[in-house]
C-alpha cells in the first residue's frame, strides 16, 4: 500500500500539529479513497446484515422455541472481541476485504436481530386479534401489520448497527482493509498526529451522517410515528 511511505513521515518535522490543512490538501486522494472504502464496507455490511437479520427475527418471532437459542447465540457473539473474531476468520477466509466484511456483518446482524425481535414482540395483542378477526393470514399479518408496526424497532437496530459498524470497520487494519482505520494506524506508526485526528474526525462524521440519513429515512417511512418519536 502506498500509504506506508505516505508524506506522513516527511511532515513529522519538529512541529507535529493535531490538524493541518496542508496534510488534508496534499493527501486528498488517499483520504477520499480511505473514506470510500470505509463507507462502502459499512453500507455493504449493514445491508447484508439487514437482509439476513430481519427474516431471522421473523423466524424467532414465529417459532418461540427458537427465540432463546437465537438470542443466546447473539449474546455470545456480543462477548467475542472484534480482534479475536478477525483472528478467527483470517486463517480460514484469508487476508482481505471479505474477512472484514464477514466480521462486520456478524456484529451488525446481532444488533439488528435483537432490536427487530423486540419491535415484533411489542406489537399489541389486540391489534393482532383484530387482524385475525378480519381474516388476515399469517403472511398478510406479517407484511401489513407486524412488520410496519415493528419498523421503529427495526430502524433503531439498523441505526445502532450502522454507527457501531463505522467504528468497528477500523479494526479491519488487522487484515489491511480498515478504511480510515488504515490512516489511524499509519499515523500512529509514523507518530503523525494530524493523520490520526483527521481520520478520526472523518470516521465520527461519517457515523453521524449515516445516522442522520437513516433517521430521516425512518421518519419518511413511518409517518404515523412522527408525533411520538423524538
Amino acid at each position, binding site marked *: 500500500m502506498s500509504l506506508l511511505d505516505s508524506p506522513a513521515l516527511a511532515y513529522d518535522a519538529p512541529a507535529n500539529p493535531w490538524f493541518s490543512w496542508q496534510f488534508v490538501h496534499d493527501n486528498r486522494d488517499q483520504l477520499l479513497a480511505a473514506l470510500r472504502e470505509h463507507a462502502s464496507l459499512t453500507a455493504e455490511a449493514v445491508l447484508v446484515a439487514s437482509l439476513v437479520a430481519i427474516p431471522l427475527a421473523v423466524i424467532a418471532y414465529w417459532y418461540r422455541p427458537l427465540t432463546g437459542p437465537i438470542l443466546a447465540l447473539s449474546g455470545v457473539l456480543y*462477548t467475542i472481541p*472484534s480482534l*479475536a*473474531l478477525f*483472528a478467527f476468520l483470517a486463517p480460514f477466509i484469508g487476508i482481505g476485504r471479505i474477512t472484514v466484511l464477514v466480521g462486520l456483518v456478524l456484529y451488525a446482524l446481532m444488533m439488528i436481530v435483537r432490536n427487530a425481535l423486540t419491535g415484533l414482540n411489542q406489537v399489541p395483542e389486540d391489534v393482532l386479534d383484530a387482524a385475525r378477526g378480519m381474516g388476515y393470514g399469517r403472511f398478510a399479518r406479517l407484511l401489513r401489520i407486524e412488520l410496519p408496526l415493528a419498523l421503529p424497532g427495526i430502524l433503531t437496530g439498523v441505526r445502532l448497527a450502522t*454507527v457501531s459498524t463505522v467504528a468497528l470497520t*477500523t479494526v479491519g487494519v488487522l*487484515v489491511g482493509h480498515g478504511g480510515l482505520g488504515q490512516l*489511524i494506524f499509519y499515523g*500512529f506508526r509514523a507518530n503523525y498526529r494530524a493523520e490520526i485526528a483527521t481520520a478520526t474526525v472523518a470516521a465520527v462524521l461519517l457515523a453521524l451522517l449515516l445516522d442522520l440519513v437513516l433517521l430521516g429515512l425512518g421518519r419518511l417511512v413511518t409517518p404515523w410515528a412522527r408525533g411520538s418519536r423524538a
Partner: protein
Amino acid sequence: MNEFNQAITWLNDPLNWTNPGGIFDLLRQHLEITALAVLLGCLVALPLGLALGHFGRGGGLVVLVSNLTRAIPTIAVLSIFPLIRAIGIGMTAAVLALAIFAIPPLLANAYTGLREVDPEVREAARGMGLSGWQMLWRVELPLAVPYIAAGFRTAAVQVVATTSLAALAAGGGLGEIISLGFGLGLSVGGGQVLAGGFLIIALALLVEGGLALVQRVVTPRPLRRTFRSRPARLAAADNQ
C-alpha cells in the same frame, strides 16, 4: 484445518506461556489494564450517574455520552492518547483510552437505576424525615444495586474485550499475540493468530460468566425476579 493444529501446538508449548512477554505476562498486563480502566471509569461515571439520577436531571447527557462513544473508533482513541505529550506510549495511555469506553454503561445504569426507584418509596423516605444524602445512601443506592451491577458487568466485559485492541497502539495485553502473529504472515503465524483469538475469547467469556455470578450474588433475592429482563444491558449492546 492446518492452522488449527498449529494453534494447538502453539498453545501446548510451555515456553509460549512462561517466557518473558509470554501468555502469562501478557495476561497479567491485560487484566491490569482492564482493572485500572474499569476502576477509573467507575470513579468518573458512578458519582456522576448517581448525582444525575438523584436530582433527576441530565438524562439527555447520559444518552448523548453513550451515543457519542459508540461512534468513536476505539483504535482512534487508543492511538491518540499515546501521542499526547504528557502521557506517552504505554500502559497509562491504554488505561485512559479504555476508561472512556467503560463510562457509558456505568453512567447509564447508575442513572437508570436511581430513576427506576419507585416514587412512593422516595415519598415514604422523605416522610420519615430522611435528608437528601440519607435518602441516596439508605434508599436509592441499595435499590439501584442490580442496575449498577449490570452496568459494571457490561463495562468490564466490554473493556476486557477492547483491551485486546491496545496491542495495535503499543499498549500491550493479549492482543499482542494476534498482532505479532499477523506480523509473521498467516502461513507462519496463522496458528499463533488463532491461538491468540482463542485465548482472548476464553478470557472474555470467563469474565462475563464470573461477573454474571457476582451480579446474582449482590442482587438481593426479592429484586432478582423483577430484574431478569436486564433492559439496561440491551440498551448498551455495543462491541468494539
